[in-house]
Every structure is written in structure tokens, then in C-alpha cells.
């Protein structure tokens, strides 16, 4: 009983520390931004892990879906809650924003998952490298498309989300963004964990192992791949929506380049393909690393790939491989291992 409550209590404690600490200004604004990026990166890594880790496909344009989510939700909230040159005065009262900004972020996620569907239909006809090439292309297409849409700022970017956030905090001054990001991160972890431990998710892993055999087990491989891809893209869109409302409230197409997609891939391979807890750890580690290397400026992009090369040499399956925390520390298993594992094997 007490052990079953341990994880929720831990999450709650984290929530209180991060959100409460930020609210009371115990964490300065810099740390709040770091927490925010950690949350975003957790969503990006854990969601990409579904495709690249559990399904064994190779998507390398995760930032494109993030961009779709960011722009769609940003445009919606600015239209609803902010004074804007294009969209005019706010159409809804700011007090509704507390509810409707998360809704806009979710709509951004839906939009991203719809774009994912458009890509998945042609690229899952065959297996292998096609998805990698297509997602790579999509990353460039999305970036160029946004750059050429003058109405949303084109290459200069889109801003106004800060005004939205200001309007909301004027109603009630608590760190809303951190709260939503926290919920988004935890929600992503729970969703992916549920997904991969469901029968449907077992189908995803069977496809990775042997697609023909998976079909012979009754797995509708095309459908399963489609759904998994859409879930993953949708979550990237949610990450993008949160990102758009971050500090400065400003996004531009240059933020969602292949470099951003690479960051997500680095976190997945660093943490271990097919390990949710590994990905969470690597997202935390990677975000902190980026911050620590900030003084190096551009040279951090020399250090980070080097770390990745070393990682591949000495720990090719990533920090955790395909294991979860519970597999590495058995005493934790009762808390958050895979469910069937702590059911005693009947012999």
C-alpha cells in the first residue's frame, strides 16, 4: 500500500518543490527556465523514444512536429488573449486563459499529430530508411513553409505569447507555465508507459523485432505504426506548444531546425532506446549539460557530439539500454517496475 503510493507521492513532492519554489522565488528565474527546458526535453525524448526506441523506426524530424504545435497553439492563444497587429484585440477574457491556453497547447498537439498522419501514410508502406529520409525532408519543409508565411512573421518569427502569459498572471500570479509543463511531462511519461505496456504497445515492439511475424500474430502492423507515430508526433506538438509560451514568448523557424531534432535523438540514444526512465534521466542530464557548457558558446557543439561518440564507444546501448530503473535497482521494482515482473512467477 505505502509502496504503491510512493511514486505518486514522489511526483507530488517534486511538483510542490518545483512549482512552489518557483512561486516563492526560492528558485530564481534562471532555474525556472532550466526546469521548463527539462520538462520540454522530457516530452521530446520520451515521445521520440516510442518511434526510435520501441518501434525501431528512425524518425529524425521531431522538431518539425514541435514547430507545428508551437505555431498552432501560439497563434490560437495570441488570437484569443492578446492584442495583436494581425489578430486584433483579445477576443476572450484573460481569466479563461488559465483553462484555454492548455487547450490551445493540446490543439497544437492534435495539429502536429495530423501532420504526422500525413507523413506516416506514405512512409510506412515500406520499412527501413524511408521514414528517416522523409522526416528529414519534412523538417526542412515545415521550417521553409513557416519562413514563407509572412502573416505569422515569416523568418522574423512570431511573438505575442508573452502578452498572453502576462494577461494570465495578472489574473492569478502563480507559475502557470511550469505547472502545465510539469503536467505535460508527467502526462507524457504515463501515456507512453501505458501505451507500451498495453497489448497494442506489445504489438509495437513485435513490429520492431519482426514485422512479418507480428502480422502473423494478428497485429495490424500498418495501423499500429500509424497510431504510434501519431501519438509521438502529437506529444512533440504539445512540447512545442509549451515551448512557444516560454520565456520571451517568441518563436521563429530557426528554433526548429534539424539541430533541435538531433537534440531529441541524442537524448533518446543517450538514455537508451526503449527505456522511459533512461530517457527521463538523459533529458535532465542533457539539459543541465547544455546549461553548464553555455560559457563555451558555439564550442559546446564540439563537446556534446564528442560525448556522444564516447558514449557510443563505451556504452552503445545508452545509459539504460532497454532497461528501466526497476531493472537496475531491483529494490525499486515494487515502486515502478513493469507490472508483471513483481507478480511472483508461479512455478
Amino acid at each position, binding site marked *: 500500500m505505502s509502496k504503491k503510493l510512493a511514486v505518486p507521492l514522489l511526483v507530488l513532492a517534486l511538483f510542490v518543490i518545483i512549482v512552489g519554489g518557483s512561486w516563492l522565488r526560492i528558485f530564481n528565474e534562471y532555474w525556472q527556465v532550466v526546469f521548463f527546458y527539462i520538462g520540454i526535453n522530457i516530452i521530446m525524448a520520451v515521445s521520440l523514444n516510442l518511434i526510435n526506441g520501441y518501434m525501431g523506426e528512425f524518425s529524425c524530424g521531431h522538431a518539425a512536429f514541435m514547430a507545428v504545435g508551437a505555431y498552432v497553439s501560439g497563434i490560437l492563444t495570441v488570437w484569443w488573449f492578446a492584442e495583436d497587429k494581425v489578430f486584433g484585440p483579445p477576443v476572450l477574457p484573460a481569466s479563461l486563459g488559465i483553462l484555454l491556453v492548455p487547450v490551445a497547447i493540446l490543439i497544437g498537439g492534435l495539429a502536429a499529430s495530423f501532420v504526422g498522419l500525413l507523413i506516416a501514410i506514405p512512409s510506412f508502406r515500406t520499412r527501413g530508411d524511408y521514414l528517416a529520409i522523409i522526416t528529414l525532408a519534412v523538417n526542412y519543409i515545415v521550417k521553409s513553409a513557416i519562413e514563407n508565411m509572412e502573416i505569422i512573421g515569416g523568418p522574423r518569427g512570431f511573438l505575442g505569447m508573452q502578452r498572453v502569459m502576462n494577461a494570465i498572471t495578472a489574473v492569478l500570479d502563480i507559475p502557470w507555465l511550469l505547472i502545465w509543463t510539469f503536467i505535460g511531462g508527467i502526462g507524457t511519461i504515463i501515456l507512453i508507459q501505458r501505451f507500451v505496456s498495453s*497489448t497494442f504497445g506489445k504489438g509495437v515492439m513485435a513490429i520492431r523485432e519482426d514485422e512479418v511475424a507480428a502480422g*502473423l500474430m*494478428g497485429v495490424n502492423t500498418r495501423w499500429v505504426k500509424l497510431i504510434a507515430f501519431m501519438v509521438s508526433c502529437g506529444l512533440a506538438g504539445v512540447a512545442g506548444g509549451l515551448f512557444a509560451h516560454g520565456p520571451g514568448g517568441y518563436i521563429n523557424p530557426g528554433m526548429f531546425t534539424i539541430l533541435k531534432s538531433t537534440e531529441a535523438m541524442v537524448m533518446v540514444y543517450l538514455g537508451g532506446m526503449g527505456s522511459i526512465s533512461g530517457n527521463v534521466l538523459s533529458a535532465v542530464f542533457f539539459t543541465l549539460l547544455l546549461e553548464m557548457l553555455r560559457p563555451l558558446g558555439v564550442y559546446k557543439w564540439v563537446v556534446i557530439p564528442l560525448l556522444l561518440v564516447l558514449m557510443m564507444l563505451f556504452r552503445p546501448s545508452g545509459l539504460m539500454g532497454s532497461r528501466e530503473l526497476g531493472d537496475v535497482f531491483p529494490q525499486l521494482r515494487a515502486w515502478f517496475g513493469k507490472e508483471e515482473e513483481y507478480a511472483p512467477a508461479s512455478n
Partner: protein
Amino acid sequence: MPMLELQDVHAYYGNIHALKGISLTVEEGEIVTLIGANGAGKTTTLRTISGLLKPRQGKVYLEGEDLDQYKAHEIVYKGVAMVPEGRGIFAKLTVAENLDMGAYSRRDKKGIAEDLERVFELFPRLKERRNQVAGTLSGGEQQMLATARALMARPRLLLMDEPSMGLAPVLVEDVFDRIMEINHEGTTILLVEQNAHMALQVAHRGYVLQTGEIVLGDTADGLRQNPMVQKAYLGME
């Protein structure tokens, strides 16, 4: 009505005419074997039944129902399971997870648990290794797992592709013992084998395939007595 009936099935790989009018029947409760040399079309025949390959001409009927309209994953729900050639186990999943996958098409938890007990009785070795990663099993154990996994779908018709491939002779006998046992418990089996000697010992009837055509169909005893079969497939002069 036969459990399975193929009527003049023609199948192609691109332009290669792999099956040139296969007609055969499998009655409920039987073990029927397809024997023939490499490239005769044995595996292709199984692939057209399980839906991995669609016949360009001709029909496949399961208990009178035309299977043409169903995809491979839907045919599983019709009660046909296949043990693919080279076993096709999920190497990075555990034995238990592989067996779970076998029951992917089912929702009756109680029935699945019963069948799990049943396959563990049939293959006690798998029970010992239930938490082991399947890729680390020996060849014989992997064959057991592939068979057990197919049984987890509780099929009425089991298609087995070369279950003896790559196994030590002592294991081959064991595999064929299990095949008979599965059949005794009521599962109809269509067995593709290069090891004609063993296959004709367990089967009720058999067909001989040569370059995409059935050249002979008879009871297993009849085939064993047939001089052509003896010479070409049983190595007797």
C-alpha cells in the same frame, strides 16, 4: 466441408510463377504434409494461406469461406496460426512476452491463462525460461517457442513451416512428437517439411510438390510405398 481447401491457386513473386495451380484439401483433425525439394513452392503455399501473399488466380477457402478478402493479420482471427520458416520469434522480448504476443488476437484472459498452462505442459522447458530473452534460447527451444506462440492464438488450423530446420536429429524427433500431441488435442495441422521421412510418419496424408505443382497426393502410407517418393524424397533405391 473441408477445413481448408485450395482451388487452382496461382501465385507469383513479381514475374516468377511460383505456384502453378495448387489444389489441395485439409480435413478437420488431420495432419497433412507438403513435401518437396527447395523451391518447390511449399513455403509459398503456406504464405498464400496465411495471407502474406495473395493468389493471383484461384481461391483459398477456410471452412467454405473465401479468404481473399482478408489480410494476414485478419486471417489470424479466423483461426489460422502460422509457425513461420526460420521461426520468426521476437528475439529481444522474453519467452513470456513472445507467448503474450501469440495471444494478441484474443481478449479472453481466462482462456489465455489456460492455454499458457497448456503450452507450458507441452514444452516444460519454456516454463523454466519464461523470463529469459528469446534470442538467447537454443535453436530447439526457439522452435518450441515459435510453436507455442502459434498455439497461444488457439488456432483451429496450424500452419508449420519446416519445424525441423536446423535442429539436431534427437530434437527433430521431439518436435514431431509434439506435433502429434498438438494434433491429438484437436488442432488441424498443415505441415511443410523437407524431412519427408519424419513428416510422412506423423501425417495422415501428404502432397508432393514439384516446381510449383502438385504431382502426387495420397495417404502418408501410400506415399511411403510410392517408388517415386522413395527414390526422390526418402533416399531409397
